[in-house]
């Protein structure tokens, strides 16, 4: 079955903005991709700085998805969506840059869905999800779009 914004929206019960193209199939990407203030990085690319704890608690991603991060102003969540029993997620991760919010491992295509940014697919593999930062004075501040 072709996965589209409309079908993901139906599966998760999450609404997406109606000006986004609903019916085209969602591109599946094998590599680094960004969605607004989040980035999805294949784990091997940053294996020297990010790794899940050895006793990390993993949760299976349910069909309605896992909310990774919610935007500012109560807004819009980035949601990880996958078919049952194909994808697991943990937030028990150490990151020398302190930006990782978690790691997911997927044996089928997993999708990242956002009401304003639309959706994007990730090929099977292990990925780190990181937040974005900016410099404020001598400190770093996490971006929330």
């Amino acid at each position, binding site marked *: 079955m072709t996965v589209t914004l409309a079908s993901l929206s139906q599966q998760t019960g999450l609404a997406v903005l109606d000006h986004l193209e609903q019916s085209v199939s969602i591109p599946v990407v094998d590599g*680094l991709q*960004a969605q607004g203030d989040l980035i999805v990085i294949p784990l091997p690319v940053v294996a020297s700085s990010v790794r899940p704890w050895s006793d990390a608690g993993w949760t299976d991603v349910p069909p309605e998805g896992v909310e990774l991060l919610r935007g500012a102003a109560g807004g819009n969540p980035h949601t990880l969506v996958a078919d049952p029993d194909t994808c697991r997620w943990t937030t028990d991760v150490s990151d020398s840059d302190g930006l990782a919010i978690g790691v997911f491992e997927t044996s089928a295509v997993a999708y990242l869905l956002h009401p304003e940014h639309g959706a994007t697919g990730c090929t099977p593999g292990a990925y780190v999800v990181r937040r974005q930062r900016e410099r404020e004075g001598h400190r770093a501040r996490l971006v929330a779009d």
Partner: protein
Amino acid sequence: MRREAAEIREEWLGRALSTLPADRPAAEAAISGLYRLIGLAPPRFHWVSSPVAALTTVPPGMRPQPPEAADRISERALPPRFSSLMRELCRELDDQVRWVHQPMDQLIRREVRGSLSRSTTGSLLIPLRAAHDSGHRPRDAWYGTQCVSWVAHYDALRRVAGVVFTPEQTRRFELWATAARSCGSWWPHEGVCVLSERPVAMHTEVCGDDGEVRLHRADGPAVRYADGWDVYAWHGTRVPSWVITDPSVPRIAEEANVEVRRCAIEHIGWASYIDQAGLRLVASAPDPGNPGSELRLFDMREETRVLLAVNGSVERDGRRRQYGLTVPGSLDDPIAAAGWTYGLSAEQYSLLLRRT
């Protein structure tokens, strides 16, 4: 039960953010009851229109104190005594929580108490801290005692989780609950209690997963009291009024506080700000993964540069939003700057295949 807990949270949030006139008889009766609980006769009540009025005026019959004396927490100071009273009540109420209630207690603690605590920190506490700017040291602990969050927690425990309090515990709890829903903040002294009316306007936005809110208004003061005292806020950050009413490049240049500068620039919009301020372009490069869009790096001020990037997805009006990200001034390459924002090197970031 989760939904019922959320409803109770919303009830108390509504009370905390209320802009209705105080229910003076109810507030005075409840606070008189609390005075009796610490062994004091009910005080006289001195009502003022705003927290700043409460902190800068001396109620009739009270001797003016030098500011350092007013700030010193002496043995006679009443707020710590009321706070101990409140903690003692909380301990007793916690003891009424049986093991069967514990999962619900955890949920209420997280989604009601935690949420309301964050909401009041992001809203009511901002004008209270601002009022203390006039020479008084803030006493957040006392405002924590007056916070609706703990009141809502025990209210939800008895109404949703089925925790039973004794009539005596309920009587004491109701004094606090009544005070929390009947007036603005109050400052107790021996013999006299100063109470503030609530604000007449309060503008907030939702900012969290559990219904948290924070002050925000882009076209006027976020909080205003009947005496005209007001506070401006941008997405939960208190800012000087010019940030909202007249943000301009020269004022931003003069502003020492980096957070205030950022709020003012966000209000103007990064692209307009860069244009108006005439920032020097350091370098530009195609944005990997975002075909047709460029990353542009500008000099901003010492040790800081700004990366102007373009959203990967279109807005409702068909345009792509531009946004600025401040980065360390040591970065010369826009790709390295974009990578830095995600903790990546230029080589790693250049692997970006798609941006949505």
